[in-house]
């Protein structure tokens, strides 16, 4: 990925998205940038957002406040462009977002079993993060034993931001999965349906295997 990943027009169009996102969603970039590039890196990203025409003051973002959904994409594009990062770093940012989110911490009480996370916590969590669309889990099964595993399907409906964000979400879910269970040897998410590919909703097939 290189600089000028997105045109001003595209940004403008994204920013026209009526959806909103909680400030907590920006915490992933903030911490990851600080971790990798320090305070100077954060300033550089802020400057890039300014260049894109939608300046973000990361330190002033409140995790529980609503922000324009498009701003999340501005933040991600600015971050990737500033440091010339690619998908690998984007995945890490998504996982970091799960790790440091205050909202997720509040949801820890639901992280009792993989099934509860999947069936109960995930839809509710979506509502805490986004003010549009919905997350619907289905087809969950799990064999909780050594060498066992399970899978489930997550469908996201009425939510269309940017194809890059589809990739981001898959790793965000992966990050949450890793917070819930220490016995997962491997967690994989595959976007089996995507609205950007003409499907009616996004669909992720999530699989995991135990140690």
């Amino acid at each position, binding site marked *: 990925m290189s600089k000028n990943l997105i045109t001003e027009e595209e940004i403008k169009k994204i920013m026209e998205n009526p959806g909103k996102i909680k400030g907590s969603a920006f915490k992933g970039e903030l911490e990851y940038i600080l971790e990798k590039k320090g305070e100077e890196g954060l300033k550089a990203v802020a400057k890039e957002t300014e260049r894109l025409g939608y300046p973000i003051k990361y330190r002033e973002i409140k995790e529980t406040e609503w922000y324009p959904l498009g701003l999340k994409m501005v933040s991600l594009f600015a971050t990737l462009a500033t440091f010339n990062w690619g998908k690998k770093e984007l995945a890490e940012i998504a996982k970091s977002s799960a*790790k*440091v989110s205050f909202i997720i911490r509040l949801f820890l*009480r*639901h992280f*009792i079993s993989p099934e509860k996370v999947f069936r109960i916590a995930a839809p509710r969590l979506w509502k805490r993060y986004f003010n549009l669309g919905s997350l619907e889990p289905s087809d969950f099964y799990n064999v909780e034993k050594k060498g066992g595993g399970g899978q489930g399907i997550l469908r996201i409906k009425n939510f269309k931001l940017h194809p890059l964000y589809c990739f981001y979400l898959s790793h965000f879910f992966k990050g949450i999965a*890793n*917070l819930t*269970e220490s016995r997962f040897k491997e967690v994989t998410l595959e976007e089996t349906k995507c609205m950007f590919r003409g499907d009616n909703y996004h669909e992720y097939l999530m699989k995991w295997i135990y140690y």
Partner: protein
Amino acid sequence: MTEEKFYKEELKILKEDFNDLKTYLDEIRNILPVSVCTLSSFWVIVDINKATETLTGYRPLEIIGQPINFILQKKQELEKIKEKAEKEEKIVVEETLLTLKNKKEIPVSISMVGRKDREGNLIGYFLSITDTTETKKYQNRLEKGTKALEESRSALMNMLEDIEGARREAEEERNKTFAIIQNFVDGLLFFDKENNLSLINPQAEVFFDIKRSDIIGKPIFELSTFPTLGPLTILLGREVRGVFRKELPIKEHLTLEVSTVPMVSGEEKLGNLVILHDITREKMIERMKTEFVSLSAHQLRTPLSAIKWTLRMLLDGDLGEITKEQKEYIGKTYESNERMIDLINDLLNVTRIEEGRYLYEPTLTDFQAIVQFVINSFKEEIKKKRIKFEFKKTEEKLPEVKVDVEKMRLAVQNLLNNAISYTPSGGEVTISLKYDKDKIEVAVKDTGIGIPQDQQERVFSKFFRATNAIRKETKGTGLGLYIAKNIIEAHGGKIWFESKEDKGSTFYFTLPVEKRFEEFLKRL
């Protein structure tokens, strides 16, 4: 206000409160000095505070999402604390090791409490970690100190055991020694360095017919108040003088031979051991022997005297004329008879000496006169052998000494007789006198045959005659020096000699005057 407006206002307030609450929690997270981790119910680290970052060196993104054994690797301790935290609704504490980002392991104390939802389901854990490195160091120092103390204690106990062993051995030795002392046939007394009696064995109690408890611990001068101990205390003096094999009659049928041995440990004098050997039986046998010799000698002297006078009468022609040849034979017989009479006289003297009844007439006498008397009796002999004789008197007049004159004459006579007999014709014999305040010293010097070096030790023994003396002179009983020595010593004097074979001999003796002499007289 409409209901919608009211709820909006209420929601706004709630959001503000919520944000304030979050800020408050963030502040606590950041300033809390104790390291705190939030764990999911599946032991995944889901949150850490600032203190945990500082302690572990990990940034939140590096550690959140990791299982707890990412930093706490001791599985057993973790299982234990987890089990407790699940069962008990209180904080449980365990000691374990924390792995830091730099891979270093430090000792920590972990406290854990389970989190439960309203329905009582376990939803995770709070874990606090306290660095106990300093505490451990202190504990280690304390343990080392304790260990050192334990070792010291152990060493001390070993030493005490050794000492106890040594004490037991010493006690056994002491008991053995004590048993020997108790059962010793000789009497033993031990006077400490202050001359107090600190030991008396049963045999000594029997000797003195006295009880240990009556005398133990008493100084020697106090012991003189006990009648049976009187002679011993006089012999030993107030400070236990050195005594070697001194005979001491205690009562009618008891004579002891007393010796003292100074006891020392290293250079420290501990006191004096007094050994009391019962010689009553030996004395009795000796007396019987002496009596037998005395009786025999007396019985022999009478017929020998008769023979002497008969022979004298024959030689003098009182019984008629005899031929020259007869006279020569009778003369030789007379001389032999004389020698036998001399021998009998010497034997009688010896028996008297041994019976202790030899000195019976001590009188104050001019000692020079005694010597002169003896010299006069040898004048003919000296002249006959052409001996160069000298009598060296003192410049000052000698003080009078209290001696048994007859016996002292005999002593001097025996010495002078030997000097003349064993000095060849033309030789020299000198008698000299010396006086130095408390004693008179007499020296009888000759240029005679001398005494062989290897026989000098036996000179004063009964019947001893040196081999060169026997060769030179067939006469002599071997009793002269024995008698002289006994006479001198009975007067409290000393006798000794210097001699070299073929060069001559000098016999010395001393006699005490004044106090020492008075003491000697007391013992008579």
